[in-house]
């Protein structure tokens, strides 16, 4: 079964990126047909129920198995850290704004 976020959310974007890696690897001869089948099965299996927080670990496991995903792991891994930092900053910012507007509540 497809993950609920697969058609529109981050899972779709993730699957698309990984599929592009697979296609490029097959085209260049870096990935055999059997490896292609195995990797695609692995991706489908793992992304069925994956949460955003687990992406980093998943990409590491994937690139450990097949080096053709190394690039995506580095790029996506960095992005996940950035996303987390941005999320924290956004929350802090909202909190400070709320303090300014409602000083009495503190």
């Amino acid at each position: 079964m497809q993950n609920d976020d697969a058609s529109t959310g981050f899972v779709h974007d993730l699957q698309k990126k990984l599929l592009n890696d697979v296609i490029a690897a097959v085209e260049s001869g870096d990935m055999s047909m059997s490896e292609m089948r195995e990797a695609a099965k692995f991706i489908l299996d793992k992304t069925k129920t994956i949460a955003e927080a687990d992406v980093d670990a998943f990409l590491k496991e994937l690139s450990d198995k097949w080096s053709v995903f190394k690039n995506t792991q580095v790029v996506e891994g960095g992005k996940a850290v950035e996303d987390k930092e941005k999320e924290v900053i956004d929350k802090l910012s909202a909190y400070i704004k709320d303090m300014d507007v409602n000083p009495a509540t503190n």
Partner: protein
Amino acid sequence: MADTLREVAQEAVAKTERSTFDYKTDHGKQVAGALRAEADRDVFTTLQIAAGEQVSPAILRANVDVSIGILRADGSVDATGTGYAERLVRAKGAVDRAEKYFDDQVDFRDFLGTTEGKVVVESTGKFLLTHPALTEYFANITNTAQRENAAKLLAEQYLQDPFAREKVRQALLDSKLNKGEVGDDYSETEAKRAEMDAKSKELEATIRQLEAETKLLKSRRAEFDRTPDLRNPTRIGTEFTTIAGLQATIATQEGVVASKTSQIRTTQAAIAALRAQYSATDKSDTAARSSIQGDITTKNGEITLAQGDIDTAAQKIATEQKKIDAYTEDRKSYDDKIEALVQKIKSTKEDKQKMSDELRELTMRKTRLEAGKGRNEELAVAEIENIFKKGVEQELMDRLDRAKAAADKAMEESAANEKDIDEKQYLELRAKRHKTADGKIDGKAIKEDFAAMKKDSTEYHVIQDPADKNKVLIVEMPANGWPATGGPSGSEKYYLTGPEFAMLQMMNNTNEFGGGFMLGKLKDAEWMKQQSQDFASQVLREKMYASRGWLRRRQTGVKRLTSAEIVKIKNSTWGGQMLENALEANKTKAAELDKALGSELLTGPGSWREKLGKLSNKQIGLLVLLLGTSGALLAPALTFGALGSAGSALGTALGSSSTAGAIAGGGAGLVIGHAGRSRSA
């Protein structure tokens, strides 16, 4: 061997992956291109395709290219790359050409003439050799070379068969070949239904047996009742009588006990009185006291005797009671057994009911699948043609050649011997009807006559053509009948069967017969019946002869007899009668025909019509071929070779156990009856 093209292709790709030969560049590009095109539509589906969970025709095609490319001519795999490029080019060409053939862009003969076509035929032959449906057939051909040759010949037929063409075409795009057929479903349902039917019958037998046991036990148990048989109320149960007797004995003995006990009590009282008397008597009166003492002793003796009687009676009571207890135990045992059997019958009946429900569903399903079965039967008839083509072909074809030559000769002789000029002309016309001016098969005339012959019986308005004395005008009755006013008069209407119409049309088209002659013959019902029957046999024979092989069909344009046409012939008045008459004339060979058909119907009870009605379309098809080849469907007074090896070969080819060698030596003149029905309306 993997049974799908997809698996074969994947297997081939996997083998080449382990080799040192770099096949990957071209193949990888093809696969990547296919995935990229798919990814533009749907990422998830593309991943499923990459995982091998869905099929992409483009990737399958790329894999097939590799699989054919790495196969050596002997079927072994070459993953080293030697000759790979050459084979790959050839493989690609083969697939391309095959696709063109399957898309009707290339004629089969042209396709077969190419190296690629031969590769496809060879591959198809290998596929057919391992097809489960043909296992039994090929198992009968023990010689390897003969088996491979038979497979190749079958492949040629198979590739030309419309159904098979479609199947192979699909196989190039998809995987499972010949899977999920209605026929498979039908066979499975029928097998399951038959199994369940047998089990249901077993349960019925069990119920019957249990009921018989219960009945027997109940009848024995009833002997414990006063009236075991309500229909005979005066009869008393055997065990009831015995128990009643025992109870009566006990009652008697109890009476003895009571009587003796009373007697003892009285005697004891008397003894007490005597003792008192003894005490009161003066001691000196020894005589009196001695007398009293004697009386006491006598009384004590009486008590001892009475007590002995009581003991004896008590023993009898105990013995008889034991017997009664044993009978009571018996009765209870019967009751328990009966109850257990009743429960078993109940549960068995419930099981049977469930089975009946399932059986009903299976029967309904089977009925629904009957509709689809027609297609399979058509396929089966096509298969007959395939079988006809190979293995047995030469013998049968030679026989058909001889039969036709003899029939032609007989017709020519018949025409030569005829005195009546018009009859003579008619017979001459018949003799040359299906030949061209240079003596070759006239496919057009055969097709025309066969098409006319297939028409349903109906009324025609036939009158002299006022513009041409050698012609009549023929108008078929409209589907909704003749108009209420202005329709043809009664004397101008004729009810004609298909063959009668075909015969009239044939005469009319020649322009060689006077209208008067034709109108006269139309009124001669006996002549019409006889001649149309002969004509039907002739057309059928000519059609079979003209369509006997692929090349002949191509030359003459005459198609093979289809299952629908066979059914039509069987169901028509004239066709059914034609087969009946041929069987009647051939009845001494019924057992041999049965062997060839794999049936026991023809030698069984009933009329020919009933027997024909029970034969399947496939069997009818075979019967037509057998009778046609043996000459039984040919014109009167002809003699032909025996059914012999033809029946045997067909029987063997169909996987029956028939050897049918005994059919040989028949060759009697087989007279076709006059089944056509003609009457002036």
